[in-house]
């Protein structure tokens, strides 16, 4: 592609320049850096002092029993938790060195995309679903949108199945196809990070496999963070894995290490199936 990556253009025009940004230039492989992150639903603390470095162009997985805070943490990364009343965050969350919590929130969400647990296509055509993010961000030229729609659907491994019925409603697709549509929709705005919140939990094994395959293929164009309750899935797809328990990050390391040789006892208990 001849045009510069959008994130670079955005960085030059929109990000506040901070001292941290310059120092971070020396560690370019970390896309998202978390330091001392605490999160509260009202007076209830859901996340305790989370610290983590998420590597660029890699797949990072969060595992842990229900209610451990992994989804809450995921949702702080694109500030989705702000749509719930009475929540607040303390600590630092840096995207390429700049504090994500102080940036313009719609800009954050364009750069950090999300795919949800249950597919949620808009009541529009397949084409309009993918084009939505582009149009809302000001991209309207038909040729550009057409190209982006095709590219996103190709990346989501859905193009061959829908290329002849782009005008049909998205609701007509099967569950697995709808979820891939949602991935394509998220990819269309070329996010630097793609967050996936248990994306396969409502899907059958074959659909799950298709999605896992495409995650391998797209990690080169983005950075992937995935929450999963399925440990085998984490073992299959993730380069790095973080184990959460009761709002704390117990252990974070290369996936191989977490599953074969964990340092903490709670991690070992969880991955060997002794609880959760």
């Amino acid at each position, binding site marked *: 592609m001849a*045009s510069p990556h*959008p994130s670079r*253009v*955005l960085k030059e025009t*929109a990000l506040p320049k901070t001292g941290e940004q310059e120092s971070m230039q020396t560690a370019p492989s970390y896309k998202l850096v978390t330091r001392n992150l605490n999160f509260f639903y009202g007076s209830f603390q859901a996340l305790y002092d989370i610290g983590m470095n998420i590597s660029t162009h890699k797949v990072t997985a969060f595992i842990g029993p229900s209610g451990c805070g992994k989804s809450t943490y995921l949702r702080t990364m694109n500030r989705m938790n702000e749509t719930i009343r009475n929540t607040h965050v303390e600590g630092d969350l840096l995207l390429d060195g700049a504090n994500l919590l102080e940036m*313009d929130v*719609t*800009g954050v969400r*364009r750069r950090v995309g999300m795919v949800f647990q249950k597919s949620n296509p808009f009541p529009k055509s397949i084409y309009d679903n993918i084009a939505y993010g*582009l149009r809302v*961000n*000001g*991209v309207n030229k038909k040729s*550009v949108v057409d190209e*982006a729609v095709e590219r996103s659907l190709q990346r989501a491994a859905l193009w061959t199945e829908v290329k002849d019925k782009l005008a049909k409603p998205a609701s007509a697709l099967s569950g697995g196809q709808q979820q891939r549509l949602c991935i394509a929709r998220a990819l269309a*705005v*070329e996010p630097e990070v793609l967050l996936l919140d248990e994306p396969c939990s409502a899907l059958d094994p074959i659909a799950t496999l298709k999605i896992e395959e495409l995650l391998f293929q797209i990690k080169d164009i983005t950075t992937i963070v995935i929450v999963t309750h399925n440990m085998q899935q984490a073992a299959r797809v993730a380069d790095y894995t973080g184990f959460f328990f009761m709002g704390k990050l117990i252990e974070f390391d290369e996936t191989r290490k977490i599953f074969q040789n964990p340092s903490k006892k709670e991690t070992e208990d969880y991955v060997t199936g002794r609880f959760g």
Partner: protein
Amino acid sequence: MVMQISRSRKITNNVMLTLSGLCALLVVMVLFFILGYLLWNGATSLNWDFFTKLPKPIGETGGGMANAIVGSGKILLLATLIGVPLGFLAGVFLAEYSGRTFAFLLRYTVDLLNGVPSIVIGIVAYALVVKPMNGYSTLAGGVALGIMMIPIAVRTTEEFLRAIPNSLREGAMALGATKSKAIFTVVVPAAISGLTSGMMLNLARVAGETAPLLFTALGNMFWSPGWLHPSASLPVMIYNYATAPEDSLHAQAWAAGFVLLALVLGINVTARMIIARGPASARR
């Protein structure tokens, strides 16, 4: 592909959302304006005579609307006696006994009745009561308003009875009660706050109706004895006085409007509070 976080999107966002807030504010302000205006104009024209004296002939000042207040009371009493039992029992049938096809037919008919404009109900009551009797009467007015009360009585009853869990019915029957005993001694009492509230809202609605009374109860400058003579009513008096050319009558119209509105809104608010505070089974 360059994507902008443009300022115009932010401005649009703030402007449109503020506008929507203004819409809500405007609508609420209308309510306060109505209440305030009626309070101001109505309460100042209100005096003891209003409640106790009869209207004076045109040209003379003074007088009141005692006959209209009593007339409205009689008409509404009759309407309640006609509409509520009929509606309530049909609602019980729908909730407890009915098969599916009959239920569909009844519900459809009741919804149809609910959509009939009140003036048309007045025509029907005229044809059914005034014509055969050859005269306007409290009875005709009561019939008109009673018919209007039926649909809401049916719907409310069915809804609130259905909301009572089956376990209550079964519990009663397991102790030896017949189905009808279970319904009337256990289910209905369990739903009582919802039913009462529903009937109050129903009454408040027809209490303000004017059109169906225009050619059924018609109107009367004097007391209306019994049930078979034309009768004054609050809403019709408001209409007559408001459209009359005399200022003193206008003042009385305001007073009557204030009393009517206070009554209607008072019943409304009370009914809603009953629902809000009642037992969980009666809450929607």
